[in-house]
């Protein structure tokens, strides 16, 4: 059932499977169709996102009013919220699981999983992924890991609570924190399965992009979305196995008495036998994934943005080759900067110098990307659809968050703001909010492709964007200030230090903005669910886009195109291109030239 890029027309017509009898189970549950799998990823990701964001609302409530009692704690947290007082251990559990869910389950699987699956076959002109079966396995492993992660919230001693970075020895010793018992075991099992899922997915994406491009779709004609997904998958394959090794070694330390990460520990009144291990080793292994992970989250969002900004500006993306080059440069650099998370971990200061150097280098391709986005807007004819607004918002938060990265990447400056709220503000803007905006932009833009022509309500989309945009800056801009005041992160309450008393009102402001932004997500949820069933059907190519997915059938069929696979004759960004004598667009009266249109007589060929 796989599609072949090199042969075409005759054989495919009867080959693909829409005439197969599909049962409910093969169509909606164990589906091997990339479009259905993409929807499964999205809906699972959104479900996890609801949990993750709800957790952040709970701990923001605690941070703003630590001495007040809230009945909601008792309702949602049970014994850990007795009498409306949040228990310190559940506070740590909330921040831990919030981080884990948002980074891995929402922004890795929910973003990359959804859009890689949806767009790779559709935009390169393939009938499906290289292996539909592996693709299905990948989703179901992700589903299983989600179920285990949610289950871990209900174990008696509480879920994992050593921070999402699960540094040992804290994560290895149930004596040190209750969450490091069964909760941590489930966390590790869940993540191990998640990594397997991610690897299967990534390998599939790589193979598909390399082998199944349709005739004429050279690598330099790929839309930037595909470049981003392709490179993201490569980073994933390179770095996720290292996290798996860290998780396995930690499992060994926890359950089988080894000492990879443990040495010289006296806890709960007794000396442990472990000797010779090093927690710093774990930090190296963790961040060898952990930092590329930032780009695994961010690159797909940037790819989606590139596509949406070009389409809605009615202009080619500025500097296509520079954009591809910066994706590759970011991907390469992302694997050699992990040590900037460890400047003060006790590793050799010389290593700190090296990592400062490589880290600040990343600013160069990032700056190129930001400038290219801005130039793409310049002299455009901007169609300010919700997807476009989210993309512009992404560029904004990417710049703001990226700039503070120049401070944190500098080892000397990192000393005093390491692990303070300055860091929290930085990474939420640059990867959290930016990637979420990318996710939303993608959902608004490709919703018609996912749900057979139905479109999201634009007015609700506008409300969603503006309230979220104001809320996000309202939360994370003031957060830099409490970080610069020296406030450490992961403190259950700041009242133990009178020195921080004057930060209390800033925390209240942050929490209020967080609730406003959180409420805006309800608007999105309503819009998503109602549009899924009752959304207005739009035209086949609603955004007047050049890419191949809009030539595919609106109704989902297995194999995507009812007839032969389309051939590609040009890159994806011929928007507003004029004919030779500049009297009209290349295609008269139409400001876009789909990739399937051959080179016209009155057109100059350009070499991008």
């Amino acid at each position: 059932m796989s599609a072949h890029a090199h042969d075409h027309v005759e054989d495919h017509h009867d080959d693909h499977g829409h005439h197969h009898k599909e049962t409910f189970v093969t169509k909606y549950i164990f589906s091997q169709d990339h479009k259905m799998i993409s929807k499964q990823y999205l809906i699972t990701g959104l479900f996890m996102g609801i949990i993750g964001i709800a957790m952040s609302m709970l701990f923001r409530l605690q941070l703003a009013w630590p001495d007040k009692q809230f009945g909601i704690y008792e309702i949602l947290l049970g014994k850990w919220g007795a009498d409306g007082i949040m228990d310190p251990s559940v506070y740590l559990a909330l921040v831990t699981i919030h981080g884990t869910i948002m980074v891995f389950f929402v922004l890795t699987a929910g973003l990359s999983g959804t859009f890689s699956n949806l767009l790779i076959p559709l935009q390169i002109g393939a009938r499906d992924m290289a292996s539909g079966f592996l693709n299905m396995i990948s989703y179901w492993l992700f589903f299983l890991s989600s179920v285990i992660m949610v289950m871990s919230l209900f174990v008696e001693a509480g879920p994992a609570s050593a921070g999402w970075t699960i540094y040992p020895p804290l994560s290895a010793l149930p004596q040190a924190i209750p969450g490091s018992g069964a909760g941590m075991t489930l966390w590790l099992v869940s993540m191990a399965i998640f990594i397997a899922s991610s690897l299967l997915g990534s390998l599939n994406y790589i193979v598909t992009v390399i082998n199944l491009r349709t005739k004429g779709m050279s690598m330099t004609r790929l839309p930037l979305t595909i470049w981003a997904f392709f490179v993201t998958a490569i980073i994933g394959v390179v770095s996720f196995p290292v996290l798996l090794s860290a998780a396995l070694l930690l499992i060994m330390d926890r359950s089988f008495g080894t000492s990879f990460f443990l040495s010289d520990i006296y806890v709960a009144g007794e000396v442990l036998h472990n000797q010779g291990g090093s927690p710093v080793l774990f930090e190296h292994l963790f961040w060898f994934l952990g930092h590329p992970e930032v780009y695994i989250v961010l690159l797909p969002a940037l790819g989606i943005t590139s596509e949406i900004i070009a389409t809605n500006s009615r202009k080619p993306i500025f500097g296509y080759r520079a954009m591809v080059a910066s994706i590759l440069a970011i991907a390469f650099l992302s694997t050699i900067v992990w040590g900037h998370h460890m400047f003060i971990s006790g590793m050799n200061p010389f290593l700190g110098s090296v990592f400062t150097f490589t880290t600040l280098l990343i600013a160069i391709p990032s700056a190129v990307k930001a400038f290219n986005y801005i130039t793409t807007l310049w002299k455009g004819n901007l169609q300010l659809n919700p997807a476009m607004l989210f993309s512009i918002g992404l560029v904004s938060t990417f710049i703001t968050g990226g700039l503070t990265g120049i401070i944190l990447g500098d080892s000397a400056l990192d000393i005093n703001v390491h692990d303070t709220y300055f860091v929290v503000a930085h990474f939420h803007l640059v990867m959290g909010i930016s990637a979420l905006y990318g996710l939303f932009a993608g959902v608004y833009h490709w919703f018609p492709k996912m749900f057979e022509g139905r479109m999201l309500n634009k007015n609700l989309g506008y409300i969603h964007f503006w309230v979220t945009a104001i809320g996000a800056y309202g939360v994370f801009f003031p957060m830099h200030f409490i970080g610069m005041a020296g406030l450490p992160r992961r403190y259950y309450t700041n009242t133990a230090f009178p020195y921080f008393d004057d930060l209390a009102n800033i925390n209240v402001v942050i929490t209020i903005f967080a609730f406003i932004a959180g409420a805006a997500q309800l608007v999105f949820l309503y819009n998503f669910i109602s549009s899924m069933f009752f959304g207005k059907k739009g035209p086949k190519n609603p955004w007047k886009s050049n890419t191949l997915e809009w030539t595919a059938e609106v109704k989902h069929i297995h194999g995507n195109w009812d007839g032969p696979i389309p051939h590609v004759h040009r890159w994806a960004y011929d928007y507003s291109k004029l004919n030779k004598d500049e009297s009209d667009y290349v295609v008269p009266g139409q400001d876009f030239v789909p990739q399937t249109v051959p080179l016209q007589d009155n057109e100059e060929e350009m070499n991008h």
Partner: protein
Amino acid sequence: MTAFLVVLVIILFGVAIWQMGKIFQLSKGKSDTTSQIANDKDNNLHGWLSLMFVLFVYALAFYSHWKWSNVFLPQSASEHGVDIDQLWLISMVLIFVVGIITQWLLFYFSFKYRGKKTQRATFYADNDKLEFIWTIIPVIVLAGLIIYGLFTWTDIMNFDEDEDTMVVELYAYQFDWRARYGGNDNVLGEANVRLIEGANTLGVDTSDPNAQDDIIVNELHLPVGKKVLFKMRSQDVLHSAYMPHFRAQMNCVPGMITQFAFTPTITTEEMRLDPEVIGKVQRINDIRRANSEKLVANGDEALEPYEFDYMLLCNKICGNNHYNMQMKIVVESEEEYNAWIKEQATLAEALKQ
């Protein structure tokens, strides 16, 4: 049972909305297919909102600085901290300039080029010169920052230890700190958690001659103007010794000894007279007084007034009481320090008791 009923009501409610939506939809008939795509009216409105949004971001930045820049840490109380603050200021000015310009361009272009039916976008795909310019400018600026940063970093981390350097061990455990001084010989005795027994809570090797005059305290006193080398140990999990006023931080790692050195330059007494600190303490005490009134009205005890002190915090998640793992730091004149240390019991004396 109530839970079941609640779930049932929610499900029925959902079904009702679903059915109503269906009826609503059927009654409407076929409508314009482009209704959910931005038209000129939308472009105009959201172009203007983009412009207002960038003004909102500027206003937020301005308001935050005007209102909250008084919460920042006061001037650095250590020698190297002055360099860090200088580098910080330069970096901050740089990122503010870049941020203000790029955000403006982004949202102003969103406003200026908002779509109109009559408008034609300019086909503009490449310009090698432009791209070269905005590659090379960040390269130059970052090269400057990297070099400056690396010099500062190397200066801080590669301290040379001479006879004058005072050696202090910071010992972290769930959820408190201890400081161990080398005593008269300024040499710390060997220690390992395996030797923890009874009153010897830091696991110091009592047979080591260097250990006999070691002094263990739970309040860190430092003489002003003298370089201190901190040797950090942890008993159980990762901790991080964070001394924000001295721009100093280093993780405490079980199984290894980490170190950080700095020279305190301002005594606690002097810092209390710093205008920024005076203002901050006053604001904190106003807040505490207001909170106390509420507490007293509820029959609770009032909060104590706050007086400025340097502090050591734990800044690496370490367990349930992570938020309250602190130690007071006192920087004082050499004489005051000598008088204080003389009163402390040495390890040999403490273990004898």
